[in-house]
């Protein structure tokens, strides 16, 4: 998901707190690794340090926490299966901000113990730090960065296990033609993510689009958009944007008399959407290239993390697993682990994982998540 930089009103305090937290995490991880190296024994020294790069605090912390919890679950299961193998995951909190990610990434690249990276989480920070990782030959596996252009930079180290934004739009069209919608109204939020996804949906739907409208991130009154939708007589709406605006938009559409289908994308797949919209959110459908957790995964995750899995939890689990399997296979330095990921070919919990030469995952599945009675239900693959 691409996220525009947020201007922090409390920048000073929060930045200081965030850096302090990140610093603590780093120190703790280093110690753990030293002990692990000494304790490793058996056929070859099996040890390694992985790094998570992404937000743990800040406005988009939820997504980062979901990923970290997923990768921690992978690590726990790995250590149970391989008690001799000492692996740690260090957490680097970027707050989702490219400006904060850059110094952290220099630190990661300079630490020779770190041989693989889970992340970066958002497209902005991935774009900012990609060249540094590529230069250092440090492999990255992102569970969540979906900007299509990221794969076009020629970074050998870049991989993502999620379909990019361009894969979502055709799936939206497939879904809407599948339910035989005759007229669709497309609204975007003018952000890099929303405008890109919105334009893709308009293109994929072709003649079915009866109107488009643009709103602004941070707006609260969408009266003109409601008027435009009602005037167009559309049966369905696709909103390309984030959950904060989506919640307000759907509630104002409903109270404005619109009774057709409301659809939105991965930016809206968050409990905050339902919380803001209340009953107005019922009946909405949200699309996401991210996979829902099955019962077995959800139970294990809940036991490990103490909360239900959320968006990108399964992708975080898969990303960590690819790197962990590489380590147990004996790839203990950056070059061989990168080689391992490039040649990876196995099933994950989200999908069959194999990367093409640009780092895109070969198999992409987009899911449709229905909203009913104030809850986002498990997604079904769109076919």
């Amino acid at each position, binding site marked *: 998901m691409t996220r525009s930089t947020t201007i922090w009103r409390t920048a000073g305090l929060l930045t200081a707190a965030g850096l302090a937290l990140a610093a603590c995490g780093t120190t703790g991880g280093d110690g753990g690794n030293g002990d692990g190296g000494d304790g490793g024994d058996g056929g070859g020294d099996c040890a390694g340090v992985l790094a998570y790069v992404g937000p743990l605090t800040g406005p988009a912390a939820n997504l980062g926490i979901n990923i970290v919890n997923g990768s921690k679950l992978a690590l726990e299961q790995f250590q149970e299966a391989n008690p001799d193998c000492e692996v740690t995951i260090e957490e680097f909190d970027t707050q989702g901000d490219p400006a904060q990610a850059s110094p952290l990434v220099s630190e990661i690249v300079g630490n020779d113990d770190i041989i693989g990276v889970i992340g970066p989480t958002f497209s902005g920070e991935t774009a900012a730090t990609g060249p540094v990782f590529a230069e250092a030959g440090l492999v990255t596996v992102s569970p969540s960065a979906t900007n299509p252009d990221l794969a076009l930079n020629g970074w050998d180290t870049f991989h993502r296990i999620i379909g990019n934004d361009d894969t979502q739009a055709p799936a939206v069209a497939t879904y809407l033609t599948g339910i035989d919608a005759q007229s669709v109204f497309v609204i975007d939020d003018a952000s890099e993510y929303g405008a890109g996804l919105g334009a893709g949906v308009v293109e994929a739907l072709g003649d079915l689009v009866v109107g488009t409208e643009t709103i602004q991130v941070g707006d609260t009154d969408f009266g003109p958009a409601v008027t*435009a939708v009602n*005037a167009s007589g559309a049966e369905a709406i696709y909103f390309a944007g984030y959950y904060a605006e989506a919640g307000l938009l759907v*509630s104002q559409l409903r109270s404005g008399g619109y009774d057709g289908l409301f659809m939105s994308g991965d930016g809206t797949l968050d409990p*905050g959407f339902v919380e803001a919209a209340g009953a107005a959110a019922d009946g909405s459908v949200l699309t996401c290239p991210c996979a829902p957790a099955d019962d077995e995964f959800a139970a294990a995750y809940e036991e490990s993390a103490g909360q239900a899995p959320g968006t990108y939890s399964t992708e975080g689990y898969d990303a960590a697993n690819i790197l962990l399997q590489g380590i147990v296979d004996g790839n203990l330095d950056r070059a061989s682990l990168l080689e391992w990921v490039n040649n990876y070919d196995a099933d994950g919990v989200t999908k069959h994982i194999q990367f093409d030469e640009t780092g895109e995952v070969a198999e992409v599945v987009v899911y449709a998540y229905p909203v009913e009675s104030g809850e986002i239900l498990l997604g079904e693959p769109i076919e």
Partner: protein
Amino acid sequence: MQFQYVLDNFVSLFVGGLVFGAVYALVALGYTMVYGVLQLINFAHSEVFMFGTFATVWALWLIGADTSTMGVALVLSLAFAMVVSMVTSGGVALLLERVAYRPLLKRGAPRLVALISAIGASFVLSEAMGLRGAIASALGLESVLGRYVARSRENLGLPTDRTFTVQFEIFGYGVTNRDIIIVVAAVLMMVLADQFIRRTRTGRGIRAVAQDPETSSLMGVNSTRVIQITFLIGGLLAGAAATLYMLQVGATRYNAGFILGVKAFTAAVLGGIGNLRGALLGGFVLGIAESLGAGLFGGEWRSVVAFVLLVLILLFRPTGLLGESLGKARA
């Protein structure tokens, strides 16, 4: 430019603008009254409004109103929420006057200092709401307050049913009971405020201080008290606006006051800052211009239309549309 679209949907856009303009106007009154009395732009007024929106939601939670609340119970619940919201906003406004202004005015600080104090107070109030979860957990009250402090940086939705029934149609646009409630309530509040300033003894005091603080204090007007009452009235109106805003928009968050505050301030300047009727006119003109502008040029041009209009009007009428100060208003 979508002239045909605007012509076809003129009533819908117009009524939509009128309804939101009513909210602008109510908030604008707070800016204009404080300016009239103190020649100070109270930038923290947007946060006074924001506290009202939260008070509205919390009041409805407290009495257990939800989507199943209907009919008379719903009307009573919303009326209760509005009273709580007005009291909360009024209280915050009084607190603001006490903490952020009075100490400065007493020491004869320049207006610029009070302005900076207002901006600072605005940040503090907004972040206090945005960090209420962190504050509660620091005090160990997280489990007691529960959902009142949960997800404190996210949108908070109005818990009651928001499907409104169409009362009558004008040129094909169904006017809902919500549209009527918002406009009627806002106009009623404004008429009350206007009459209060014009007809009561306290109102005369406010006008006297606005005209000449020194002379009025020589004539026995307690200016500290007058300033306090001015803040209180502004707060009460912002609280009423907050409940109406929640009916219209449906959700709030800790920084919801910011954009609305800027727009309401614009409305006050548009109508002539310091002028009560100007704030009313400015609010409606701004709301309608925004709505029609968004229809004509597309939603992303909405704020552009509003501010270009402001610049144009100030170019030709530097004192705003009605350009008369609070002090000169006659009884």
